[in-house]
């Protein structure tokens, strides 16, 4: 086996040379812009930094400092908000998206138009979406006027300055922004299921709800898998919306702070003072975030792989 392989190896080289040549430019760019920065930030996280200069080797000291106060309060708070954000998006965006997609699927007419309506906000940059919702939600803004006219609110609307509810508002704005994505993916997924399966279920007397739960959902596993993974990566990298709507401090009182806004403050010195940075701590946090994303993403993909129904 191995001998024959060895003999064939040069021929394989011949065969793959063209392929390698084609891959090489992309690989070089990938190394330059992904692998090298990752490696250098890993390396940097093992050193003490004063200002913007690397000083002494400190091993895992930066990682240890992340998990004690004063950093721990911020880190655990930010992590909690990221988890909350993920759950909120799963329910609000993907759950609702599934129901919308199923309704579109049942309707069968005018779906293309409605799909584009759902998808419209997704073509806007999160920065624009954030600015837009900030304007709508200011005191004296459009939402306040609407709520006044409906008699649901008295006085001023100050929900973005309210540390209890601000995060909910941000998650809702994010869900609104990306609602089109699950609708698009689920509609495509539903169309791929053989119509005979639905017909058979109907003949057996299953209602729409039953069909969604018992027939469609198990067969939509691949769609659910990719959406969950994407949602996880996006929510744990959440930065732009918070930055635009609440500032880099995750106002009010860090109620909307996320791991990446915390990273930004450590790296660029916005932790209550400009110019006082803690790059070692920032790089340690960045490294941990990268590891977390990688491990959980692989875990998620495997988890769904085992639950995919095949006919």
């Amino acid at each position: 086996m191995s001998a024959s392989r060895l003999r064939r190896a040069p021929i394989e080289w011949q065969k793959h040379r063209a392929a390698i040549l084609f891959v090489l430019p992309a690989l070089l760019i990938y190394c330059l812009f992904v692998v090298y920065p990752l490696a250098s930030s890993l390396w940097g996280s093992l050193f003490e930094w004063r200002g913007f200069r690397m000083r002494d080797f400190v091993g895992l000291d930066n990682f240890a400092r992340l998990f004690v106060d004063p950093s721990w309060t911020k880190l655990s708070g930010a992590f909690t908000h990221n988890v909350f954000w993920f759950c909120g998006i799963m329910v609000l965006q993907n759950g609702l998206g599934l129901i919308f997609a199923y309704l579109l699927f049942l309707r069968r007419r005018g779906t293309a138009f409605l799909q584009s309506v759902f998808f419209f906000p997704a073509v806007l940059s999160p920065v624009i979406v954030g600015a837009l919702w900030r304007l709508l939600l200011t005191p004296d803004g459009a939402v306040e006027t609407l709520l006044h006219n409906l008699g649901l609110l008295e006085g001023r609307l100050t929900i973005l300055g309210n540390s209890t509810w601000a995060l909910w508002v941000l998650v809702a704005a994010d869900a609104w922004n990306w609602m089109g994505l699950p609708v698009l993916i689920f509609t495509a997924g539903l169309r791929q299921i053989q119509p005979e399966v639905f017909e058979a279920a109907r003949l057996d007397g299953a209602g729409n709800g039953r069909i969604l739960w018992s027939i469609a959902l198990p067969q939509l596993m691949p769609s659910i898998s990719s959406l969950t993974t994407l949602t996880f990566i996006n929510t744990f990298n959440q930065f732009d919306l918070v930055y635009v709507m609440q500032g880099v401090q995750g106002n009010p009182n860090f109620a909307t702070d996320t791991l990446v806004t915390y990273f930004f403050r450590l790296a660029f010195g916005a932790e209550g003072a400009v110019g006082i940075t803690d790059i070692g701590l920032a790089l340690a946090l960045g490294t941990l975030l990268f590891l977390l994303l990688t491990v959980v993403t692989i875990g998620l993909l495997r988890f769904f792989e085992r639950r995919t129904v095949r006919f």
Partner: protein
Amino acid sequence: MLNVRSRLKSAAIGVLALTATALSASAGEVTLWSWRTEDQAAMEKIFAAFTAKNPDITVKLQFTPDADYQNRLSTALRGGKGPDIAQLKAYGELQPLVDGGYLDALNDSVPELKDFTPAALGGSVGIADGKIYGVPYSTPVMGVFYNTEIFEKNGIAVPKTYDEFVAACEKLKAAGVLPIAAGGANGSGWALEINAGVVGPSVYGAGFYDEMISGKAKFTDARYVKALEKIKALQPYYSDGFAGVDYTTATQQFISGKAAMFFGGAWENGSFKAQNPNLKFSIFPFPGDKAEAQPAVSAFSDGSYGLVSDSENKEDATKVLSFIASPEFAQLFADNLGWPPARSGATANDPVLKSMLEMQANATPYLTLVGFRWQTPTASSVVQAEIIDMIEGKIAPEKLAADVDAAVSTWFKPKP
């Protein structure tokens, strides 16, 4: 193919020509970076006066908004692509640049610095070696800006005691005028920290700073807590929908004449005037419980201009710095910008500036910036984060004070 080649050639020539002009431009041209985008017109006027006297040197001003400035400057300095002269933050926020060795000490090259008071220089001293790394330009005071027309119309005199101040707010509110423009939305915590700087000295007086630095007093001190309580007690008079109003909106409320008062620092003077030349306003120190001739106010060194070590044009840049340290610059600065210049002796031709210079007579360092913004977690980071919830009544003033104390205790060492 030929076409592409000739294009490449001309592009290369273009690049060469560009570098050539860049090199030739640096002779006799001093680049200066600043974050004061609001002051661009005034600064150009000031430096035109310098070029009029020194025709062989032009000062090229480049502005970057405050939020991105520090990041841009530090990145450029690390890459050796910085300016000749950089506007620098003060106190603790200056130290990373000094530590990194990006700046030259100016003690010998700019002799005019000897004419500055220690308080004015305090913000630009390197803490490790005690040398001066920047020419300071202003020592702003903080106080209550007020709309003189609204005060007159409602028959209100400048309040001399805290009770009079509250009575004035009540009167304004009854007349349908917003008493104090202030808000805490979207990253406005720093502006509310300034409210603490405005109200604080009226409670804890001018001596409190030294007690704090020597370790005799802490943030949990009853006087500091009382100052926080006063800020909270004024909540009924802040902008309607306080938690949803941000700093920019609050300034607009004052500038447009909708609000009677605004808590702020001296730098607002120039930008208020620039945005509404017809606004009639002045400033008074926040009053204490008992009437005083000259109540204590917070003051600090706002920043300075420093010489970048990598500059290839140090001789000309030093001349520019000497000009910034001159009485002439102080006068131009006072006339064009209306903040108190760092160098004393300028004549105030602007009535608001005149009031500010009078307030300087009883100034105490702005506590959270001058004393406790040296290392993270800074006092400011806690105050800015929690003050909104404190005013809203979610956090007790004692708790905020305790949190600030706990944060700074991790690094602060008293200097007896």
